[in-house]
């Protein structure tokens, strides 16, 4: 457990992707089975322990610490798991300060050698052996079961923790957790609490963890992704294969995830080299990309799964779609498509769909008000056939036939956009409503171009698929605050909070409307960094208050994809995907945009979506 804790600890601070990979791969190399497998499971979100709730952890600490001291500490640290990990009382009676004070080396200092406080403490005042605010009474109740502290039992291994938690009942959990917390060091305690409460938040995606595992055997992460649904913790077969000790594990999963094919963003210059006749165009729908897979298990029962584009199983969030994936008379299929909310046949915007994302509990009310729908782009497998090697045009023909056969209102075909020339497509993209998208045009975020002869290849192969987004919204906003970036950017002020004008109690004032930390070139970053350093009026911790007066300040042209109402922001609006598109050195701040402009945009985006 301590080695795993050390890994989590290090990952939590490491900003760079490649360095994270190295730390992970090094861990997988140095750690034995089955610990490393459970670590991989924890990092990919394959573990969950239903009984471990924050309330339980709070109870554990309030049994052991002065509530005032706990309160002050929690206020200071701000994170429950961390506070508990740090202040968990030591069990052993002797202090674990490992090096006693050394004898003074001669020549240095000017006084006599001292006695350590601890030694003197027992000599003079004879205080209780532990300075803990309250005696660790809960630890002593267990009496006969296990002697704690005296024999210094070794800390639990990760495997011990995982296997025990899986079988442990709710009533036994607090005592077991307390025992482990006694045995672990503080990083171990922090990791344990993060692990059991499932709130890791250390910036590691499942994909990154799998890539790190693949790197162990110089394998492609796609291969791991492909076999992943068939594997289960602690992944002994996977590691055996990665280390060249056995054959590649066969994915016996009836509903495997297939790595997704992605598109490149097209630039104006690309069109000159492309022939319109080679391509088919579709709308780019502003939903979430998913893969719907159906198959039969060994007993012939139909299984259906919904995966996110990274291969995460999201079936549980969309139970209303699952029955539509049970196609009688078909042994298996895999559809690549977009998840959308449809109301009375009309596609809703992403803002509406968002209400259905990341939900643990899906209520009947939610299902009724946000009916989910699958718009099919591609057919990757049909019965026993893997269609991915076929050209797109053939897969499309099979998809059309398949959707017809399926005949389900919840699943439909992504329509194509007819065009003969790039000019025609440009016009369609500029006005989707007139070009076939009709009333659904608000949910169109651009067009997709797919080569007629393109096979379905994982990742982002060159020249096969292109995405051509609609032009983003643009506003001119004023730079208000700047913060340092992370990693390579830690010496630059690269995170910017910007605002627009509004009429407040004190007259015209700027209200923050968003934050952006990319979109600029390296040269522009240097310029803004210099501007921030020379025009800071105040500092609040890591944040610099940058001058923003009507005649003094920097105007940023900010591009963004959409707006949503947000009670969390003072301005009441939140931007989707904001980035700096230009620096407007030429523009005085007083000429920047106003909040009313954003509110108008918001009305036109969400006017029809309020639930």
């Amino acid at each position, binding site marked *: 457990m301590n080695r795993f804790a050390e890994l989590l600890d*290090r990952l*939590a*601070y490491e*900003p760079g992707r490649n*360095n994270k990979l190295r*730390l992970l791969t*090094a861990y997988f190399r140095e750690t034995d089975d089955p610990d490393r497998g459970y670590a991989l499971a924890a990092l990919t979100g394959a573990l969950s322990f239903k009984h471990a709730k924050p309330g339980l952890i709070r109870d554990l600490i309030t049994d052991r*610490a*002065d509530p*005032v*001291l*706990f309160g*002050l*500490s929690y206020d*200071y*640290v701000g*994170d429950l798991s*961390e*506070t508990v990990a*740090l*202040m968990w009382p030591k069990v052993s009676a002797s*202090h674990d*300060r*490992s*090096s*006693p*004070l*050394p004898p*003074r*080396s001669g*020549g*240095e*200092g*000017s*006084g*006599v*050698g*001292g*006695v*350590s*406080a*601890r030694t*003197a*403490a027992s000599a*003079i*005042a004879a*205080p209780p052996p532990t*300075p803990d*605010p309250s005696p660790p009474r809960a630890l002593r109740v267990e009496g006969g079961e296990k002697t704690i502290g005296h024999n210094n039992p070794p800390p639990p291994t990760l495997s011990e923790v995982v296997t025990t938690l899986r079988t442990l009942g709710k009533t036994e959990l607090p005592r077991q957790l307390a025992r482990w917390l006694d045995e672990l*060091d*503080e990083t171990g305690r922090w990791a344990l609490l993060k692990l059991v409460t499932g709130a890791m938040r250390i910036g590691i995606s499942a994909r990154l963890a799998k890539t790190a595992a693949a790197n162990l055997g110089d394998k492609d992460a796609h291969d791991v992704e492909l076999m992943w649904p068939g594997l289960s913790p602690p992944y002994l077969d996977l590691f055996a294969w990665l280390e060249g000790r056995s054959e590649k594990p066969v994915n016996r999963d009836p509903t495997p995830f297939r790595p997704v094919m992605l598109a490149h963003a097209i630039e104006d210059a690309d069109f000159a080299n492309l022939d319109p006749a080679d391509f088919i165009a579709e709308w780019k729908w502003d939903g979430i990309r998913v893969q719907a897979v159906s198959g039969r298990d060994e007993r012939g029962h139909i299984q259906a799964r919904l995966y996110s584009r990274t291969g995460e199983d999201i079936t549980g969030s969309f139970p209303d779609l699952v029955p539509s994936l049970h196609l009688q008379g078909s042994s298996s299929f895999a559809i690549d498509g977009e998840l959308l909310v449809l109301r009375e046949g009309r596609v809703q915007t992403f803002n509406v769909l968002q209400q259905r994302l990341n939900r643990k509990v899906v209520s009947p009310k939610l299902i009724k008000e946000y009916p989910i729908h699958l718009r099919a782009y591609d057919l990757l497998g049909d019965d026993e056939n893997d269609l991915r090697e076929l050209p797109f045009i053939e897969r499309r023909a099979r998809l059309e036939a398949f959707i017809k056969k399926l005949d389900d209102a919840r699943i439909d075909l992504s329509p194509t956009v007819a065009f003969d020339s790039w000019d025609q497509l440009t016009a369609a993209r500029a006005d989707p409503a007139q070009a076939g998208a009709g009333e659904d045009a608000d949910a169109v975020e651009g067009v997709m171009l797919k080569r007629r002869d393109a096979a379905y290849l994982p990742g982002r192969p060159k020249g096969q698929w292109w995405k051509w987004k609609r032009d983003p919204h643009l506003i001119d906003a004023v730079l208000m605050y700047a913060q*340092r*970036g*992370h*990693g*390579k950017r*830690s*010496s630059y002020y690269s995170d910017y909070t910007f605002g627009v004008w509004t009429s407040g109690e004190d007259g015209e004032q700027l209200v923050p409307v968003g934050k952006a930390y990319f979109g600029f070139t390296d040269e522009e970053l240097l310029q803004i960094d210099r501007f921030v350093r020379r025009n800071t009026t105040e500092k609040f*911790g*890591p944040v610099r208050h940058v001058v923003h007066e009507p005649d003094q300040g920097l105007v940023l042209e900010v591009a963004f994809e959409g707006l949503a109402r947000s009670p969390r922001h003072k301005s009441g609006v939140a931007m989707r995907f904001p980035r700096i598109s230009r620096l407007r050195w030429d523009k005085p701040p007083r000429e920047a945009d106003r909040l009313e402009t954003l509110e108008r945009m918001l009305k036109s985006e969400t006017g029809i979506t309020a639930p």
Partner: protein
Amino acid sequence: MITHGHSDHARPGHGAVLATQETLDMMRLRYGDNFAGSTQAIAYGEELRLGDVKIKFHPAGHVLGSAQIAVTCKDTCIVASGDYKDASDPTCTPFEVVPCDVFITEATFGLPVFRHGNAADEVKKLLASVTLFPERAHLVGAYSLGKAQRVIALLREAGYDAPIYLHGAMEAITHYYQSRGVALGELRPAKGVKKADLAGTITLAPPSATSDIWTRRFPDPVTAFASGWMRVRARARQRGIELPLVISDHADWDGLTATIEATGAGEIWVTHGQEDALVHWCKTKGLAARPLDLVGYGDEDEHEPPPANEAEA
């Protein structure tokens, strides 16, 4: 009477200063020859009398020359701890408990979440990182008076014998430590070294410099910070630290509480830090306690001499 050379305890402009020779030397290094009207050096254990009042300096184990000051009048003894730590430190005289009636304690880490582990283990973490990333430079933020020299000494104790690089702002004070017989091995200025040559090396710098333009001369630097604050993740992340090293020159919670008990003092005055929690703890132990609420004292990082002229150098 000045306990030690950190700028939140030692300021220039006093009429007369009584302090250990090291503290006086450091004040002179930082503030110039005319930092005080007159100065008088006192050794640990030496007693001075002023009328009915006896004054004695005792080692505080905080930095080189740091002292607790005991003032006794008739039957009452008051000890002002200054900053102190009861953990091992190869660069200064170990802390000594001074029995007294009133103990004025610091409280920089006066919350039970602050329990500093063994500093040698933190240095091992740093060395492991240097091994893992041999093509990157490691920048260790450390207060230039005391912490930097302790980290260097700990690195040497751990067997690291390569040259260690220094930010310009800490050269003078580090050389002063060497002149007082503290063995620190080969030290080099980071200034003027080619970027590629800094791969795989360790450089000590003031905390504020580790996130400044100055860092751009290093190859893909790993930013470390040696401080007791690094116990709390949010503190480390807020500063953009990748490798937090919990190495503190202050007593941790256990050290503060054990020391308070060991002095046998019945009354505790708390200053410089998290007073509330420590005052609360004292009261639960039946000790009279109150915060001193001094304004403008605390984290010495805030008072670190600005490395501004260093930044572009």
